[in-house]
């Protein structure tokens, strides 16, 4: 579904990612792991085209997305739940969700999709007139995911959804993700917490200092000492 | 870095002095333009202390220049206070206003845009107060008759006096800028300009440093205003106290390269005489054409050579060095 080849990217002259290649099949849950500053968020922002690429190519569902603008990537069917949620703080829960449904195709379905999101996260329905900036961390994460779902994506990219959340909320979030996956949504999950990640994904890539160090099935990786080594440095 | 500063400062001084020597031998029309150019170089250097080194676009320096131009003349004509006392008073008042302005805008970190907007409003307030105050000449300005000096057999005409003052002023600003850049204050200002957060984290006091820069700049600008008044004889408030004056200076400096030492000198030295001559030639047919050209040049420079002429020259020279290596 997503084929990324030879991606080199960074900020100005600084190269953060070197020759990254990965692929995600339809219906998979794939993890992107690695220690702090390995380049996970940069990679995800490259897929969303928020960061200019130095080199590389990317195909999504057969279509070349290497030169699209960020809003066009969303229109294609890839939706990102950014690190730190990045909500619209002075808008209500409902307005944030409405903004999620901004792309043309999704707009017609907005009413139905909002109902679906409220079904997935009943807490959001309760708080639909509350300003997003005043929600708790867990509620904000639910809203961020809900907002990303509003554009009807076929690939959902989540950047560290469990960051700063209580275990209870983490469980709620991952239960929702599992439900979404069962219904056919393809998911790319960036996670710093190794155990949480390996429990919830099928395959994963481990990034180390801007390069893909390891890739394989989650089951195999759970017991691979090389993975832990890549994670913790040396 | 220090060597580069030393070279450019020395170069600037030499250029200014050489210009002075050449010009003093020229017919009065051209020496007049040269004198004005030197004054504007000095004013640009003075502004650059806040603008280039401090990294804050001040649009209110017209207050200091206007004070320096009008207060001594007013005190002489209306209170019979000797000029040099008036000049000193203007400098003191300017430094106080500068300190106040700094306090107003830098005690909280409100950003560059805020600073530019507030200083612009203050500059305009200064112009309105000058025009509305009879003591400072009101809307009609002040006229001071300067006398030529005689030392025995040597006569120094008023025009030559202006040239000498202008030279001294320009040299002073170059020396002060050079000294500032090599001082601890200069180091602090550059750190703040590069990264305010990091600089404050290592203990650099934003308010104190910016205020020091502003006060120095204000005093120099005030002196420049006094020299300008001496050159002109008649002081027109719409010229000296109007934000337009300082904005023109910023224009020249930006084209030359804000934040460098040579930038203000180069920008003013190239553009100002050109503008004056053009203005003389086109006096009645197309008034303001020279300003259109300046404005358009600035727009082009910002888009094509963001670091100004000096920055562009520097990159060229680096490229040459790389090629030769």
């Amino acid at each position, binding site marked *: 579904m997503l084929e990324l080849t030879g991606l080199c990217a960074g900020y100005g002259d600084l190269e953060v990612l070197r020759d990254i290649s990965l692929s995600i099949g339809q219906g998979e849950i794939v993890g992107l792991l690695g220690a702090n500053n390995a380049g996970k968020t940069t990679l995800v922002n490259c897929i969303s085209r928020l960061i200019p690429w130095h080199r590389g190519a990317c195909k999504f569902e057969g279509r070349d997305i290497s030169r699209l603008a960020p809003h066009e990537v969303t229109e294609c069917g890839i939706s990102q739940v950014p690190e730190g949620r*990045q909500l619209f703080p002075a808008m209500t829960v409902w307005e944030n969700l409405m903004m999620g449904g901004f792309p043309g195709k999704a707009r017609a379905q907005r009413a139905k999709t909002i109902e679906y999101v409220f079904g997935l996260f009943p807490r959001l329905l309760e708080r639909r007139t509350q300003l997003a900036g005043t929600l708790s961390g867990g509620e904000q994460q639910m809203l961020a995911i809900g907002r990303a779902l509003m554009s009807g994506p076929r690939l959902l990219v989540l950047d560290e959804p469990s960051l700063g959340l209580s275990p209870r909320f983490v469980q709620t979030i991952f239960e929702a993700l599992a439900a979404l996956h069962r219904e056919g949504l393809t998911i790319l999950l960036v996670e710093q917490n190794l155990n949480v990640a390996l429990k919830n994904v099928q395959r994963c890539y481990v990034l180390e200092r801007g390069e893909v160090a390891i890739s394989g099935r989650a089951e195999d990786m759970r017991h691979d000492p090389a993975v832990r080594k890549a994670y913790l440095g040396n | 870095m220090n060597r580069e500063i030393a070279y450019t400062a020395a170069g600037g001084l030499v250029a200014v002095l050489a210009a002075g020597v050449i010009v003093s031998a020229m017919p009065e029309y051209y020496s007049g333009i040269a004198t004005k150019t030197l004054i504007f170089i000095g004013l640009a250097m003075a502004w650059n202390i806040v603008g280039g080194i401090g990294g804050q676009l001040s649009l209110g320096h017209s207050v200091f220049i206007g004070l320096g131009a009008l207060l001594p003349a007013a005190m002489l004509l209306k209170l019979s206070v000797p000029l040099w006392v008036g000049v000193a008073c203007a400098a003191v008042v300017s430094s106080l206003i500068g300190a106040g302005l700094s306090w107003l805008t830098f005690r909280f970190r409100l950003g560059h845009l805020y600073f530019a907007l507030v200083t612009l409003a203050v500059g305009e307030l200064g112009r309105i107060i000058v025009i509305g105050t009879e003591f400072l000449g009101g809307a009609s300005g002040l006229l001071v008759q300067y006398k030529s000096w005689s030392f025995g057999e040597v006569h120094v005409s008023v025009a030559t006096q202006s040239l000498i003052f202008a030279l001294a002023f320009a040299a002073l600003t170059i020396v002060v800028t050079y000294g500032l850049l090599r001082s601890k204050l200069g180091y602090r200002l550059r750190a703040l300009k590069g990264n305010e957060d990091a600089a404050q984290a290592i203990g650099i006091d934003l308010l104190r440093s910016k205020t020091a820069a502003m006060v120095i700049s204000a005093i120099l600008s005030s002196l420049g205003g006094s020299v300008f008044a001496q050159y002109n004889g008649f002081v027109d408030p719409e010229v000296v106290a109007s934000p337009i004056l300082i904005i023109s200076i910023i224009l020249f400096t930006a084209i030359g390269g804000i934040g460098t030492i040579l930038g203000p000198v180069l920008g003013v030295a190239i553009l100002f005489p050109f503008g004056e001559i053009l203005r003389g030639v086109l006096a009645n047919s197309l008034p303001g054409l020279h300003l259109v050209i300046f404005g358009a040049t600035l727009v082009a420079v910002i888009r094509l050579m963001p670091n100004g002429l000096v920055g562009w020259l520097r990159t060229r020279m680096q490229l040459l060095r790389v090629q030769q290596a």
Partner: protein
Amino acid sequence: MDILLQAIIQGVLIGSTYGLIALSMGLIYSVSGITNFAHGDLMVLCMFGAYTLFAILGLDPYISVLLVAPAIAIATFVLYKYLIQPISSQQLMVIQLTLGLMFVIQNLLLMVYGGNFQRVPSVLDGDVMIIGDFAVIQSSLFVSFVTTWVLAAVLFWLLGRTDFGRSVRAVHQNARAAALVGVNVGRTQLIVVSLSAAILAVSASLLVSGRAIHPSEGLHYTIVALMPFVLGGMSNLLSILISGTIIGVAETVGNVYLNGPLGFAVPYLVFILILIFRPQGLFGARS
């Protein structure tokens, strides 16, 4: 007392137009972080557009605005797209560029129209309205007031209740997230900028009635508008409008008590005074 009341009413009326000019600055700033120091000059350009349309076609400024507004919207669109947007991340550069622009516009106008004051006659010239037995106001000022607040109401409705308006607010609150939900940030900014220019053209035609215009007044209008802009916290449109009223009242009341040019110093003094106590503006947020 009567004179004071008259001045206050007048100030509220004229302040609404100042607020409108400042509002268009605020709109542009809130969506792109850009402040155009040639803003007032663009407005003077509109005023002279109205003057020319009167000279050639005999159009009343209240009518010619229908031609001037789209023209200035297009001109501003081109200006922003090719000159300003490419450097929009460097605030200091934008300020310098727009200062250069100010020189260009101001002096082009001087070259074309000369250095004299011009008048643009309008249908409301000399018309006054009498309120009760305590105030006499120019009809043109009253029209300005009503137009400003109606326009503002429409704008607030647009921003609050339509998809486009919501996308503008989204870009203001978090441009990155807006891009991620599918908003074309660059294009949204350009549309808002063009809209603001059209609003500026309306301000111009409102002011032109009953005032003499001059090519070099642009900077003055920029400065008069920047005060409500800053006092309103630069992005809060309603507080910008209210601050415009404050500045207007300060100006008219100042002129009652201080003779000559000094009366016009009062709004600036009020501005500085407010900033001493609330540097972030009346309704702004301290970061």
